[in-house]
């Protein structure tokens, strides 16, 4: 019997409503299509603050936090940045809750030398209002900007090499974090690839340290990067992380949230279309029509304006390995839907948001990384689609970039991709050169642009899809150029795309559709009970 979140379409099934950027579109999928829906949100913790205190007092593999404190010590608190959750959550963000409790504890122990670093890695600097949203007014007003600030991966004076891994890779970290008596990392484990050893080793490092694992080889050897046990990326980062945790005194706090991305008024967006009430059906229809008619900024505002009502489902503290195992387990519990057998065709709508376009337009390179990277990797066991299979995605692929955040992306898409799509070649020929671009570095350091190496990582992140899929067909693209640049085909309708996927053969294709967002992972079992 199918899992309740796995719906097989029948002859009289309603059309499915999928995201296509910030539009909602109705598509008819063939009879027999398996549509995977998100699991219902896990019940949030009744008293998150009490749960945080409990976690700090009953840590895993470590003494309680209070036992590791002494008056006068130098403490740094690092927190994950705005790239998660998506969209940003309603206040108070779980990081505000965690840091508030930690700061109270530090004050009780006579600790005054405290700094809070937003562990951005090579992501863009968060803006003041975003940090205020994430950490709350009280913390922001007390610490910003001198004792609460963004990490700067190019501030050579404030970076220090702490050593090399057994493989010879250097690890350079934020000096303040390294020189602190205690580093407390407050993480938000939105998906299984977040957190763990990655928090310190990536969030607080420099570009050179990232290079050893942020590369096409690590990505290609990950199956998938959402499954840490089978991710070479995770293994490579863990090597760095172990070095960091050997040299630094780190206390890890990880949190998980449920998947309640939409408020109750938009809850119907995640429901099986056949089970909608007549009121919900009318509302959904109205959204489909209005997102088709409204101008782009208005469409964006509908989804961007309202923070998500995510609920905190877990908090653990102590030694990174044990803590992270618990948060990943909770992620899987929320996201994994069991499914048997890979499909010939995988369908999904690419939504309007990714970790790297909060408050900005989803540029084409980010569409690519969602399509061939993050969404493709949403599986455990084996990919949802057969090797050489077809991905049909819905997105306009508009050739537009946010000038402030995504300045380095423009050259990558329009200057480098026309030369080659080969990720290894791009890395060898161009990555380091672009990573040293003085203008783009300045935009990263003093503006709010991503580091010039970031678009390269975004291309590598799509490597699994590129290597595995036979074809990618885009439905609803507003131009031919961008899809062609990515090696994708375009199609005017889902019907036409499915016809093309048959490739002239007279056979029926097995189709699986992922009804995202919010996050769903397919827990794949291959016929006969094997996993990939």
């Amino acid at each position, binding site marked *: 019997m199918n899992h309740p979140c796995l719906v097989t379409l029948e002859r009289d099934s309603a059309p499915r409503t999928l995201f296509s950027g910030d539009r909602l579109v109705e598509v008819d999928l063939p009879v027999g299509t398996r549509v995977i829906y998100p699991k219902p949100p896990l019940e949030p913790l009744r008293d998150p603050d009490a749960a945080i205190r409990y976690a700090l007092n009953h840590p895993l593999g470590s003494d309680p936090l209070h036992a590791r404190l002494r008056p006068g010590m130098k403490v740094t608190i690092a927190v994950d940045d705005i790239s998660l959750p998506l969209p940003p959550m309603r206040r108070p963000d779980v990081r505000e809750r965690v840091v508030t409790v930690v700061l109270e504890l530090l004050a009780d122990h006579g600790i005054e030398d405290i700094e809070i670093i937003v562990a951005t890695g090579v992501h863009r600097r968060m803006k003041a209002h975003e940090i205020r949203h994430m950490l709350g007014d009280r913390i922001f007003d007390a610490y910003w900007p001198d004792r609460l600030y963004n990490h700067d991966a190019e501030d050579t004076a404030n970076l220090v090499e702490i050593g090399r891994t057994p493989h010879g890779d250097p690890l350079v970290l934020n000096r303040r974090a390294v020189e602190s008596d205690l580093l407390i990392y407050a993480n938000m484990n939105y998906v299984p690839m977040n957190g763990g050893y990655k928090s310190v080793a990536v969030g607080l490092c420099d570009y050179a340290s990232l290079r050893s694992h942020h590369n096409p080889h690590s990505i290609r050897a990950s199956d998938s990067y959402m499954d840490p046990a089978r991710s070479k990326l995770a293994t490579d980062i863990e090597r760095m992380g172990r070095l960091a945790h050997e040299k630094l005194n780190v206390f890890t706090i990880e949190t998980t949230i449920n998947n309640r991305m939409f408020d109750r008024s938009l809850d119907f967006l995640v429901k099986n279309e056949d089970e909608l009430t007549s009121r919900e059906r009318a509302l959904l229809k109205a959204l489909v029509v209005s997102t088709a008619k409204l101008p782009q900024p208005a469409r964006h505002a509908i989804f961007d304006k309202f923070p998500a009502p995510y609920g905190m489902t877990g908090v653990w503290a102590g030694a990174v390995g044990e803590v992270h195992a618990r948060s990943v387990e909770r992620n899987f519990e929320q996201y994994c839907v069991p499914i048997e057998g890979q499909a010939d065709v995988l369908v999904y709508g690419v939504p309007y948001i990714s970790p790297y376009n909060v408050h900005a337009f989803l540029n084409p390179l980010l569409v690519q990384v969602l399509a061939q990277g993050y969404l493709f990797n949403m599986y455990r066991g084996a990919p949802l689609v057969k090797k050489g299979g077809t991905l049909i995605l819905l997105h306009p692929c508009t050739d537009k*970039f946010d000038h402030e955040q995504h300045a380095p992306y423009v050259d990558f898409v329009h200057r480098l991709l026309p030369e080659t799509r080969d990720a290894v070649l791009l890395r060898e020929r161009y990555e380091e050169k672009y990573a*040293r*671009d*003085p*203008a*783009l570095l*300045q935009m990263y*350091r*003093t*503006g709010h642009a991503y580091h010039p190496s970031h678009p390269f990582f975004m291309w590598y992140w799509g490597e699994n899809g590129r290597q595995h899929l036979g074809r990618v067909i885009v439905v609803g693209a507003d131009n031919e150029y961008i899809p062609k640049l990515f090696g994708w085909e375009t199609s005017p309708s889902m019907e036409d795309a499915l016809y093309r996927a048959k490739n002239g053969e007279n056979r029926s294709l097995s189709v699986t559709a992922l009804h995202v967002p919010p996050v769903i992972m397919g827990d794949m079992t291959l016929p006969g009970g094997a996993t990939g």
Partner: protein
Amino acid sequence: MAACYFDVDGTLVRTNLIQPTVYYLLNQGTPVQTALRVGKALFRAPRMAYAELLDRRTFNELLYSAYAGMSEDRLAVLADEVFDSVLRPSLFPAAKDLVEKSRAAGHEVVFVSGALDWIVRRLANHFGGGGVIANRLEMKAGIATGKLLKPVVAGPEKARIVRDHARERGYDLDDCFAFSDSYSDVPMLSVVGHPAAVNPDKRLALLARAYSWPLFDLTAHA
């Protein structure tokens, strides 16, 4: 190997071409000389303002005519003072970091300015060295004639000079960078593969956005 071409006034320092000139005029040998020179300059001011609207090169020529009659020694001595009193306090906080990042990327750093070469050379030294492309006063028997030697570094001419410089050094212009704050430098920005608008005026900011050129503000600290 490539070069980074930096416009100076408004890009790396808050000052413009007029401020150093005013400093020179106010620091003549005697109060009478100062009064005479300032008076002449004020007389020319409306013409300069009009020239600035039409053509940067004409503006430069009018501006530097104020130096006519000054001795080379005096100009050289005052150059140190101009740098220390006018330029150094007006350097943008992040300017040095930008120049250092350019050097760290392996690029030759070249300062391209309509200011006088004596002053720009001192600025280059402050930034740890680099090439200087700047205006030079014509001298006769150790006295400035008030005319500029060709080529006059301004507007479209900057583009030609940068192109020639890159060709002489064997640089591929496509790999070179240029930084400026002013719309009048669009020709220079357009000849390199990596143009960037720094603290841009409105027209340049619009253009930079239209062409997706990097755009940033050096007045902010890193």
